[in-house]
């Protein structure tokens, strides 16, 4: 059985991919009813033949073939589920932020961002045997991406300081444009859809809607089952990061690292987005300046509906968040519009935090009201 269309959600890392997958899982039966199959990271990483997944770098042809056959089996199961749900297959969505390769973004000697990306994506397209393929990639402003990656590495037991982990942090090595171009060069890829994470990160439901928008499902899915309890991974606060940086050096086993991580997240987790900032203002400014030209080109080429300076400053990025909120939580309530106007003057972190919590509640209320009316 071949899949009619493949949507590859490839991350990027630290853009809420885990939250998105959990949200997709909650509407999986509805997706089947609309002719959409879903294969998420766990099924790929947990496959017995996962050693043949090319995201892991060099693999033997035999292992790769085994993996591709297993993925084809997963696709077949999804196609059967779609037909059992009474629909005709329209698309298969594969979601894994490992699809670009598992290398960290901090390799000081790497010449390319995610060098395994092309091989990994091409392998998945081959395995799914789709008629058309689209890559969907959510990106994050580079300084915030580095901060999130750094905190995650500390949570996993890392012992390096920020400047040791990102020795080239002031160089534009996170070449999003180059990576997109490399994927577009793959003959099987008809489109690379680029989305800024800041536009969708406030709610899992809006994230799902955004991801599935090209499939023409607008308004057809009942997003209420997603609920408002899904959040991105909790991250350490800067103080937890300082504690971890010193404590991790004394830890031996994965269990010890897990215990410390659990303790620090229980008592010292960041309580809002602003609480995850490790960079000082000068360092942040230097990083933003290093990426100014790249980001200008990125937005001009791949996000023409958004201002080219969206990643140039906190203030500009906060406007992205506002745009996302306005789209997601479009409301005729004057009070909401007033809050949105007020929020416009605040820095991104504050805006993300306030909207992130309040708007989720409002969405849930709206969904419940919508469910009563028979649609959302």
């Amino acid at each position, binding site marked *: 059985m071949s899949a009619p269309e493949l949507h590859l959600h490839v991350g990027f890392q630290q853009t809420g991919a885990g939250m998105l997958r959990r949200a997709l899982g909650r509407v999986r039966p509805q997706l089947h009813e609309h002719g959409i199959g879903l294969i998420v990271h766990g099924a790929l990483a947990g496959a017995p033949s996962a050693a043949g997944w090319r995201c892991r770098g060099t693999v033997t042809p035999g292992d790769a073939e085994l993996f591709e056959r297993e993925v084809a089996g997963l696709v077949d199961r999804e196609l059967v589920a779609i037909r059992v749900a009474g629909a005709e297959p329209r698309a298969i969505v594969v979601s894994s932020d490992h699809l670009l390769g598992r290398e960290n973004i901090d390799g000081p000697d790497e010449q390319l961002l995610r060098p395994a990306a092309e091989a990994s994506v091409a392998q998945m397209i081959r395995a799914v045997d789709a008629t058309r393929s689209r890559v969907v990639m959510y990106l994050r402003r580079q300084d915030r991406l580095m901060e999130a990656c750094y905190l995650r590495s500390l949570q996993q037991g890392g012992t390096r300081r920020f400047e040791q982990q990102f020795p080239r942090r002031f160089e534009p090595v996170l070449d999003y444009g180059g990576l997109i171009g490399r994927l577009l060069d793959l003959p099987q890829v008809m489109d690379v859809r680029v989305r800024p994470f800041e536009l969708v990160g406030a709610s899992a439901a809006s994230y799902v809607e955004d991801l599935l928008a090209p499939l023409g499902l607008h308004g057809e899915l009942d997003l209420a089952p997603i609920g408002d309890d899904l959040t991105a991974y909790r991250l350490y606060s800067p*103080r937890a990061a*300082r*504690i971890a940086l*010193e404590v991790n*050096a*004394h830890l031996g086993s994965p269990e010890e690292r897990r*215990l410390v991580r659990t*303790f620090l997240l*229980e*008592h010292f987790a960041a309580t809002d987005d602003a609480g995850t900032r490790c960079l000082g203002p000068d360092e942040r400014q230097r990083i933003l300046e290093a990426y100014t030209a790249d980001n200008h080109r990125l937005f001009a080429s791949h996000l023409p509906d958004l201002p080219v300076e969206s990643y140039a400053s906190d203030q500009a990025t906060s406007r992205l968040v506002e745009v996302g909120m306005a789209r997601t939580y479009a409301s005729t309530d004057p009070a909401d519009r007033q809050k949105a106007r007020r929020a416009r003057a605040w820095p991104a972190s504050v805006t993300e935090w306030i909207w992130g919590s309040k708007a989720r509640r409002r969405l849930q209320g709206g969904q419940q009201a919508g469910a009563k009316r028979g649609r959302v």
Partner: protein
Amino acid sequence: MSQKEVVYHLGAHKTASSLLQKYMRDNTDVLRGHRIVYLGRGEMNDCVGWGKRLLKRPEILGDRLAELLDDDGCDRLVTSHENTLGPPLKPGAPHLYPRGPEIVEQLTRVLMPWRSRAFLYIRPQAEFVESYYLQRIHQGDHVSFSEWLDDLDLDALSWRPVVDALRQQFGPDRVEVVDFGLIRQGQNAFIADFFRRIDPAVDLAPDYRPIRNPSISGKGLRIALAANKHLRSDRERKAMRIFLQRHFSNRDYPRPILFTDEQKAQVRQRYASEYEQLTGARAQDAGGVMGGAGR
């Protein structure tokens, strides 16, 4: 002088004071049956503090004792408060509990209306210093043992001055100096022994739930030293203490190495005869008991 008696357990620190305190707190009815009333540690903090309050406002403790002993149903009041004698170790101090003699003098003035006895449990100096250091770390300190030791004079760790002060003020036959090594017989035996010393007729057979108060391990110590400097509030320090006790205690990991074997031998040798004279126990036999009552 009243025939009623005050039994004052003065610690020392790190000698299972909390075990005795918790047992008495949880068994007031049992003690009542032996006509004993217990004045709890919390109240003693208010009355005595770290000794300074007793020096400045002795009437607070005196009034409270009088109030409790006015009860016809009690012949004896027992209290336990290891902070009464002040901090045990201070840089430049000539002996353990340097403020002890001054405080003891004041204490006996307060206890004048009643018969009184003092109990002091002690342990060999090397173990005492190590254990007290670990308690400080447990409470949020983050200085290394060697740095902490730099401020201490290992020749100024004698128990004798404070014991002499007690014997002088209370009377030699009214002071019990007990070797903490008794704890190796078990918690219940330790508790029962304490009450037999108070009165052989108080023959308790406690079946008390063991107190889990393990000391941190070597790894726990390294983690605490790394983390404590970043903690800001008592709540955070308490959370860290509980975390380390639960997951990085000496039940699961090797004990911390603080004194070297050579240092420990030197300290033991320095105070061995004094310890034997004070308690009747040999320091070598009394050693090897680390941590709190959870041993």
